[in-house]
């Protein structure tokens, strides 16, 4: 089980890696979304705001109207943001649930594929 602060730490690292990657920013420049992450085991929620491929903020709690909702165990979410697991594989095993479009799921996978190609 991961604490809320641990997930925020992982999200901060994820943001730094995404925003610092020029290739990724170019690829995702038409992606503007509000994403909610929900840890089903702890009940913690987080909001990520992305504008034109740049992660503007990560906040605790569910703020605004989400375009995508991702649910999973806290440990799974944490591992996903640290790049320790492949989110699509988790999705296909039913370990994470994504409420959103198939394109958004592919975008999230594309981000991890660029940052952590070996995952």
């Amino acid at each position, binding site marked *: 089980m991961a604490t809320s602060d641990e997930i925020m730490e992982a999200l901060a690292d994820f943001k730094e890696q995404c925003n610092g990657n020029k290739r990724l920013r170019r690829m995702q420049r038409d992606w503007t979304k509000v994403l909610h992450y929900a840890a089903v085991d702890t009940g913690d929620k987080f909001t990520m705001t992305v504008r034109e491929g740049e992660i503007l903020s990560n906040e605790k709690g569910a703020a605004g109207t989400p375009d995508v909702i991702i649910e999973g*165990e806290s440990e799974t979410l944490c591992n996903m943001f640290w790049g320790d697991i*492949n989110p699509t594989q988790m999705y296909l095993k039913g370990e994470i649930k994504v409420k959103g479009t198939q*394109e958004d799921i592919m975008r999230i996978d*594309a981000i991890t594929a660029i940052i952590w190609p070996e995952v």
Partner: protein
Amino acid sequence: MTVVDDILAEKDFEKIRKETETNYREYLNPFALRMFKNAGLDVIEGRREGACVWDISGEKYIDCVTGAGIFNAGRHNREITDALKKALDVYDMGGWISIIRERGLLAKKLAQITPGNLKYSIFCCGGGEAVEVAIKLARGHTGKTEIICMENGYHGVTGFALPATGREVYKKPFAPLTPGYIHVPFNDLDAVKSAITKDTAAVLLEPVQGEGGIRPADDSYLAGLRKLCTENEILLIFDEVQTGFGRTGKMFCAEHSGVTPDIMVLAKSMSGGLYPISCAVFTEEISDFLYSHPFIIINSFGGTSLACLTALATIEYIEKNNLPERAVQMGKRFMEGLLALKKNFPELVVDVRGKGLMLGIEFPEDSIGPRMACLLKKNGVISIYTFNNPKIIRIMPSLVITEEEVDFVIDAFDKSLKEIRAQEAGRNMKGAGK
């Protein structure tokens, strides 16, 4: 030894897999490879026969995708292959600025087998190109510009066809697109009525939406469209790329409703998955446009000698083996099995529907379609969700599928649904134990 001899002689499947994946990663489309691998759909096609395909490692699968309806006559159909081999011994493709005997013979055959007064053909290579031809004919013939298309429809991704495809994700990165396309809800006659203006040239739709989630149009809706189009001097275009050549239990899906469009678009199974060809078939009245513009719609590789002979052999095979009737029989067997699954898995199967061997299973949420595709492959079946609606898994096997193979597919669905049920139960238990 030629390069082809070398390639075909290689039997070390581990070497082939590594080489192919490297080439995809380095020279084709790395992210597509990743998606295939993530989904467990990284089958590298080796042997292909009947309703089946074998991975290069020798693993056998029943192919329920068939390239969205390319292989109605079966994978690597030997009779059609022999016809193509014979054609290759005699001809090359033929010049496009030449008169080609085989092109005329195929056009005549299509005039004979397509419904009503459809008569003239223009040939191209792919479905999207044939849709483009249909739209050009509609605009050229009527002198009007607007095309009414359907939400969630799929008509390909090329120039004039892309704006007709009813999903933004395909179009957004390529804007600005050709203007003049209006999208309305499918199966809603009033929506079409409301969209008609003095500039409407045509109404374009698939009689069964394929990528939109295997959604058949109601017969009364098609009849209503026909009446509406005739009254308003608007052309009716049926995109039968996926539904044509026996797939839905008739040679062409239009025959179910008795509605004849003014233009019918054909591709996919037209030449048995052995040589590319597609076409738009249209009425004599529309052909008048070609009198003043005989070379305005041209295609270097459309309707080559080889493609036309292969298509003639394919049509002969479909007719001789009465594949439309086979689609009815096997479709009925599938439907019985699928309805039983719906009864046994009410929380997972929302709907089963389709015509003939163009079937779809709808799940309650998007994630289940991709997860099912992954599990079905593990259970010996290649299937995939529809591109415009991931809640639906398509079942579009070759029409030569046997009763035993149908039962195998149903059994694979049963096993896969049980696994999804177990995954969901495990997840719910974890959630409850927090």
